[in-house]
């Protein structure tokens, strides 16, 4: 799993690439939490365009970060999920907590 982070003011965009399963959850959780805490992040955008697989371990990290952002009065979005990943996000109800958008522009225009 590649984790690419870019922060502008209080917005953190994280581009993930690879498979989002238990192999990577610890590292992902840790990297995200550190950056959120240190950078005083209030808007977290996770870009899943290059994620080819997600299971409940991966969903757990996303939901955990959603809870963290909510506790910080921040917001979280997911962008770019491909059909197979989007299906799992919707099936699990994750999309009801973390809104899904096609891309970053779509977030701004909403």
């Amino acid at each position, binding site marked *: 799993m590649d984790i690419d982070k870019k922060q502008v003011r209080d917005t953190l965009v994280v581009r993930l690439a690879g498979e989002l399963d238990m192999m990577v959850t610890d590292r992902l959780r840790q990297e995200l939490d550190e950056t959120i805490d240190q950078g005083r992040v209030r808007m977290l955008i996770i870009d899943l365009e290059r994620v080819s*697989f997600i299971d409940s371990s991966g969903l757990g990290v996303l*939901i*955990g970060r959603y809870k963290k952002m909510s506790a910080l009065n921040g917001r979280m979005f997911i962008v770019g999920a491909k059909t197979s990943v989007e299906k799992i996000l919707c099936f*699990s109800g994750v999309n009801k907590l973390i809104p899904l958008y096609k891309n970053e522009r779509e977030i701004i225009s909403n």
Partner: protein
Amino acid sequence: MSVKNYVQFEFPSKPENVSFSRSCVGAFATQLECTLEDIEEIKLVVSEAVSNSIIHGYDNQPNEKIRIIVSIMDEGTLEIVVQDFGKGIQNLDQAMEPAFSSDPARMGMGFTFMKSFTDELDVVTAPGEGTCICLRRTFSRPDEDDFPEGG
């Protein structure tokens, strides 16, 4: 029900083997008449079952044994058995409930996914002995098949 083809594999309970094992089962399943979407769903349920063996069955100990037996039955049924020899499940009814997890950092969606993306799910477990998950899914029945190839 007769077995047309099968593969049995064993590997240690290492996180990197979750990806490997779901790929293998997915590759084997291509021998059935199924779509790419079906294969993705099969990979998901394997990922859930194997992750559970590692995380819950073996408390993340990386050198314990996991066994998978995948069989293709004559009538187009895929059977996937995932077995560990770990701590077992004390309260199976509770474990199967959606959103139940013994680990607060987890979603408790594993069994829900396994049930949702298969036709049948059987669990045999005993505390201290391990857990055996049997998943079955049928992709084409003989009566849908105009030209059965025979056994």
